[in-house]
């Protein structure tokens, strides 16, 4: 594949390994969305 001449070189060290990132993303996609939790209604203090 012809991609031309080099213009610059750099070093990339990902914070999370892209190999494990792929597995994590797939696992997240498989998990069902969390159910909404119904919070107790706030009671107004009686006068």
């Amino acid at each position, binding site marked *: 594949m012809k991609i*031309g001449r*080099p*213009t610059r*070189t*750099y070093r*990339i*060290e990902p914070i999370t390994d*892209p190999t494990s990132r792929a*597995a994590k993303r*797939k696992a997240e996609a498989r998990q069902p969305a969390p159910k909404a939790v119904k919070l107790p209604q706030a009671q107004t203090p009686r006068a």
Partner: protein
Amino acid sequence: VTAAPDYVEPVVAWRAWKTVRRNGEWRLSSIFAPTPRALWSPRVCLTAECLAWRPPWEWLRPRHEAPDPTCECGIYATSLDALYEFLTPSLIATSGGRHVVLGRVSLWGTVVECDRGWRAALAYPERLFVPALAWRTVDQAASVARDLERYDVPVQLVSGRLEDAFTVVPQLVRPLVLRPAA
């Protein structure tokens, strides 16, 4: 003390793979370097090696680390437009068949940026697209897509031939920022 990296996010760019049968399953392989060392294993990043020809009197010397800016070694990726120009039907036919998949790849480690793409030391697929008509039947293409799910990345079957996939896939993904922020 080690030098700080220049970036902490991989470069994500496009490339094409040839699919080959290994132990009864479809696996990704390089189109241009069909050696066992250019086979991409699921859940393991591919490490570049310089496979350039060397004269016999240099065989005893160790090879340089890949990629080297003065060599042509490294794991290649480019833009979708550049890939489309390069993957002509005759080239695909001469590279050992039509079983080619498209996809995006994460590149990291030492990365040599070039005029129209990158050469990297380490790489792993980010997303794969299987053109349905690159195989004898759509069922066979679906079976290939299922095997490629072992890479733990999104795999999508796209209708049509490889050439058609180039018009379909840009609509299925968010545009890439092809160069890391300066």
